């Protein structure tokens, strides 16, 4: 197995695909990636080379799990939403084939320093990294609650996982095919109370994250979100993936790939960013009936952050220490 990189930080590896399975509309891949699994933490992502005609760049995917022990030791999981040349190609890679994987990349979710009740909010395939985070939080003794939403039940990844893992869990679908009909943001304010959440973690479409952040802010609950932006390099050198962030010097552009993808939600200047999400394949041109999976949650109006509140309760995870 070819591995390139240093003793800490991301490595580039040739990884065998050990397993591929359908997860409703999505696909789950398990990759043999011992060095990445060892260094990874929830919230980080990998950048996978694709070989569809005409493609050039890698594709970023959240790490949906990393196994260090057991019979799948040294593996990582990713969950794919096939909707374009890269994701289609990856969803079709048979077990036994190899992929070039670079990771772990980006900053992980900061973990609470004292025991807390945490509410994890996942939208669509954004639930995948939340399951990984949930496991980690539970292992550290926190109370884990899940709010998982999607357009329909085929986009709720393995609902048994949050049900088993969490103290409390709830599901929403826009078409009502599973759990509450509506969006996660419809229930969030109420669920914050129900779960007595002291911290919220969220991953999903940016519009959902903006709305989640607003609701949390209104409720005074600190919130960490993992965002998405178009990425060319994933390692901080191209400057394509920026997000406007409130800093001491005013709003500045930060790179999602190295300064994120996890940000304290109140620090994101959403109103200065463009609304870059478009529904995947809104029109049914093929025979298969893909449709839109994006949320369109809208939060209340603009307000500023008090981020000391949150950072007091969290510590930053250092990943991949020198061994």
């Amino acid at each position, binding site marked *: 197995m070819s591995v390139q990189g240093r003793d800490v930080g991301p490595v*580039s590896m040739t990884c065998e695909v050990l397993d591929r399975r359908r997860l409703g509309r999505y696909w789950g891949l398990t990759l043999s990636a011992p*060095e990445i699994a060892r260094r990874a933490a929830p919230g980080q992502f990998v950048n996978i080379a694709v070989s569809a005609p005409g493609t050039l760049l*890698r594709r970023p995917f959240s790490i949906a799990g990393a196994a260090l022990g057991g019979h799948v030791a040294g593996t990582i999981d990713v969950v794919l939403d096939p909707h374009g040349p890269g994701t289609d190609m990856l969803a079709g890679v048979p077990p036994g084939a190899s992929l070039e994987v670079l990771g772990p990349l980006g900053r992980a979710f900061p973990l609470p320093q004292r025991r807390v009740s945490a509410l994890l909010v996942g939208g669509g395939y954004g639930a995948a990294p939340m399951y990984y985070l949930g496991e980690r939080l539970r292992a550290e003794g926190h109370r884990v609650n899940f709010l998982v939403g999607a357009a329909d039940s085929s986009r709720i990844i393995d609902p048994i996982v949050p049900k088993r893992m969490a103290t409390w869990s709830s599901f929403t679908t826009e078409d009502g095919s599973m759990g509450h009909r509506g969006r996660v943001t419809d229930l969030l304010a109420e669920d914050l109370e129900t779960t007595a959440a002291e911290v919220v973690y969220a991953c999903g479409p940016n519009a959902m994250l903006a709305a989640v952040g607003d609701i949390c802010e209104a409720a005074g609950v600190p919130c960490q979100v993992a965002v998405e932006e178009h990425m060319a390099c994933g390692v901080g050198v191209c*400057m394509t993936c920026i997000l406007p962030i409130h800093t001491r010097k005013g709003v500045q552009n930060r790179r999602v790939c190295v300064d994120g993808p996890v940000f304290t939600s109140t620090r994101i200047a959403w109103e200065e960013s*463009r609304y870059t999400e478009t529904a995947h394949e809104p029109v049914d041109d093929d025979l298969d009936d893909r449709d839109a999976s994006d949320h369109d949650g809208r939060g209340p109006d603009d307000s500023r952050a008090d981020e000391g509140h949150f950072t007091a309760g969290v510590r930053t995870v250092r990943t991949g220490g020198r061994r």
Partner: protein
Amino acid sequence: MSTTTRPTGRTTGVDLSVDLGGLVLPNPIMTASGCFASGREIDALWNVSELGAVVAKSVTLEPREGLPTPRMSETPSGMLNAIGLQNPGVDAWLERDVPWLASRGARVVASIAGNSVDDYREVARRVAASRSVAAVEVNLSCPNVSHRGLVFACDPGRSAEVVRAVRQALPDRPLFAKLTPDVTDIARIGRSVVEAGATGISAINTTLGMAIDAETGRPKVANGFAGLSGPAIRPMAVRAVHQLFTELGPEVPIIGMGGVRTVTDVVEMVRAGASAVAIGTATFADPFTAANLVRDLGPWLGRRGHTALADLRGRIEPWPHHPR
């Protein structure tokens, strides 16, 4: 875990060194401006001093936040970008990044940009103060505010003016004028900047492109127009480098770039007339690209009996007629 070890070209007995008008580099592999950030990001993966030289992101007099997202879109074998020269400003770069690069043992080439001749002159003046900057590349693909926003590199006269100003402010360092392919006659622009004092040429910058989402009607890059780079443009780059080499002759060093990814791409660029070769977009697809090229170029040449890369510069062979 084994950190990658990288035999240099020298161990194969092949001479990879290049002399870019006084800037002598151990090997021809450089970074393309704007595709390597501060150098720290890639140094987290491999030792950036292995490179022939690091060409930094273009810096301007003042810091810039750049353009809104989406800033990039993949195209067939290429990508479009419109970053808008986001950079910390020349002073912050000189203070924070240059000393760090120097401490790592990297050879540093500044890339400077501006919207007026005065801008360029002033940035060059500040760069001149740093002895750690070995050479300067003048990014001429910037809109000229005093000329209806027309890009400097599109006009031989304005390009020459900028080069003269920079040359004056920075008389003691090799100076490369970076050209755009979006002109009727790139050789003519090349001739005029060399006459204005450029040591050599860097070519090519991105070519202007655009992509529109059929469905939503939105430009795929928020800015609308964007620069096209990557393997898709390599044939344009090879052509431009060859035209410049033919026009300017072997005395004028050329840093060739545009879609280079493999060892054969490097050799192709050198045969077209490049003295050294810069890697841009390929680093995004694989951040180890440049390191692998430094490692593999010497052995590739050695296996073919070449003893010095420089011998291949500008060497194009004729097509033989059919043997009969």
